[in-house]
């Protein structure tokens, strides 16, 4: 049974070399190459600290690996039957056994020290310059500035990669799947505290360049912080499986200079004032449907599909749906209050009266649902809280 073993050896050596070369390549500075091998470039102190900690750990475990398997490698080459080596007879040695229990333990303590320092730092969210609340929805992010000049600015941020690119009908853009319609904007060199929460399922707000990754747990508030010291655009992705479009809810943060930030805030506030609807405004059917289509595309089409056909049975069709074609009140109610225990969220919390009125009007007039209904914001207002 023990035939020639030399060629197996060649193979084993190759594998070893490949493995070692692979792990060593991590530090070899090839990080700039196309084949990205290491963590993203950090732009906060904390992220840099973690970057270094990771490098240190990787070198460390590589040394352990090489050391341990160097010994084994020697044995595999020298102590073989093929070389005529005869088995020695020993099977216990208390000293070495104690040593190789203690030495790893000491090594681990050495690792634990810097790890503890980094972690304590990472969790210290006190003395923030500003606070932003981040809400995870299936499948988009809501941002609300809670303090500072920008207080009150809030918006929803959704994936902006065109469907056609995802379905391979169009060439993919540079930031394929990592682009959104509205970026989160923060000033450079300011400690930003992020509060995360969610309304439906658990999401996770994560931006690798800041070393932030925090679950957004429905009903609970978690926090994290970062202080970016380099202007630029940084991208991340939802990092907790949250259903169908988990892979399609990226995060984009612009870190800008103080001046640019002030400009941005002013522009936002102006826009918000302009957009603030007169609650008593009366819309025509055309206005409603036009506005409603937009609201529908950003908020509803993910589940109910642009065609209104849904993805039954997970997401019901709205085209021809009994609720949509039934009395307005029921239709409005399900949009405002959602349906607990299903993916259908309470949009009353996310959309204003005019948006809800228009999206419902749109649904009642789109596809084959030609009901010719008009719904006014006032009707939504009356139904809220019921």
């Amino acid at each position, binding site marked *: 049974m023990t035939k020639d073993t030399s060629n197996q050896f060649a193979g084993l050596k190759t594998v070893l070399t490949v493995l070692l070369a692979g792990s060593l390549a991590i530090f070899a500075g090839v990080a700039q190459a196309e084949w990205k091998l290491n963590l993203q470039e950090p732009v906060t102190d904390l992220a840099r600290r973690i970057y270094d900690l990771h490098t240190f750990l990787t070198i460390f475990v590589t040394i352990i690996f090489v050391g341990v398997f160097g010994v084994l490698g020697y044995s595999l080459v020298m102590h073989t039957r093929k070389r005529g080596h005869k088995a020695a007879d020993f099977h216990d040695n208390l000293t070495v056994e104690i040593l190789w229990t203690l030495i790893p333990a000491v090594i681990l303590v050495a690792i634990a020290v810097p790890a503890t320092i980094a972690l304590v730092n990472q969790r210290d969210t006190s003395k923030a310059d500003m606070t932003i*609340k981040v809400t995870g929805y299936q499948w988009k992010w809501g941002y609300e500035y809670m303090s500072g000049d920008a207080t009150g600015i809030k918006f929803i941020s959704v994936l902006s990669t065109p469907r056609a690119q995802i379905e391979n009908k169009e060439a993919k853009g540079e930031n394929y799947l990592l682009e959104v319609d509205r970026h989160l904007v923060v000033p450079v060199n300011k400690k930003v505290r992020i509060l995360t929460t969610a309304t439906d399922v658990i999401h996770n707000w994560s931006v690798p360049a800041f070393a932030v990754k925090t679950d957004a747990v429905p009903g*609970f*508030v978690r926090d994290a912080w970062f202080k970016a010291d380099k202007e630029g655009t940084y991208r991340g992705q939802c990092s907790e499986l949250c259903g169908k479009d988990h892979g399609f809810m990226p995060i984009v943060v612009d870190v800008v200079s103080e001046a640019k930030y002030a400009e941005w805030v002013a522009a936002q506030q102006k826009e918000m004032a302009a957009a603030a609807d007169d609650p008593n405004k009366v819309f025509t059917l055309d206005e409603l449907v036009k506005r409603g289509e937009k609201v529908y595309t950003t908020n509803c089409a993910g589940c109910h599909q642009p065609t209104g056909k849904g993805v039954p049975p997970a997401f019901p069709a709205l085209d021809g749906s009994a609720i949509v074609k039934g009395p307005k009140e029921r239709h409005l109610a399900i949009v405002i209050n959602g349906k607990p225990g299903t993916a259908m969220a309470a949009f009353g*919390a996310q959309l204003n009266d005019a948006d809800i009125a228009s999206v419902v009007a749109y649904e009642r007039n789109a596809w084959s649902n030609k009901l010719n209904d008009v719904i006014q914001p006032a009707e939504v207002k009356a139904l809220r809280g019921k």
Partner: protein
Amino acid sequence: MSNPSASRYFIPQPSLWPMVGSLALLLMASGAVLTMNSIANGGFVLLAGFAVLFYMLFGWFGSVIDESEGGNYNLQVDQSFRWSMGWFIFSEVMFFAAFFGSLFYIRVLSVPELASSAQQLYSGFAGFVGTWPTAGPAAEAAKTEFHAMHATGIPLLNTILLLSSGATLTWAHWGMLAGKRKQLVLGLFLTIALGLTFIGFQAYEYYEAYNHLNLKMTTGVYGSTFFMLTGFHGFHVTLGATMLIVILIRSMKGHFTAERHFAFEAVAWYWHFVDVVWLGLFVVVYWL
């Protein structure tokens, strides 16, 4: 048929009962899935599953009893049974641990966290007080009232019932050891009666909870943990009582000897285990 000191370890004949049991569980699981999702005829499948399960239990335990009475089980087999029952009860302990652990987590960690000011500032649950018992922020905001179950009254009575049933069971065991078959039968009978009374009271308590206290499964975490823990325990009492009935019938038929009565002891262990769990329940669910 070999004698009780059978020299070889008993290996049972090939048997179809396991297969029947698997079929039963497949039917039960499918039936439950259909029923829970309101799909037609799921109930029948579920019932069929139960029927097959009972058929299997009767058949399987029937053969075990025959083998035992036929003297196939030597002392090593007896010892195996002891190990297995011990480990089985340990697995049950861990099952309960999941629910006790949840109650602990909810009371000590999650409810206070929901009620903490840091959370309330930003979550949708402003004003949540979170004193136990609570049905959670939503019910509190809607001002839905419910009453928690008091430890005095039925629960205390039930504690006394279960503890006495432990005593009567031990008394029955003494009877068996001393060869007093009457004491054995009477003790078992009393134990079963106490157990069934316990179950009756528990049912009454549930009835009260649903009809007069507005305490339901849907009453937030208090309702959830209350019904899960007491319900799972009640299910175990029912199981224990059923096993005691089997033991009672076997005792009346003259099974068991003072030396060899593993089945009796196993059921007794189980009953004491259910007893101890109740004490835990009484303290953390009703009392504290």
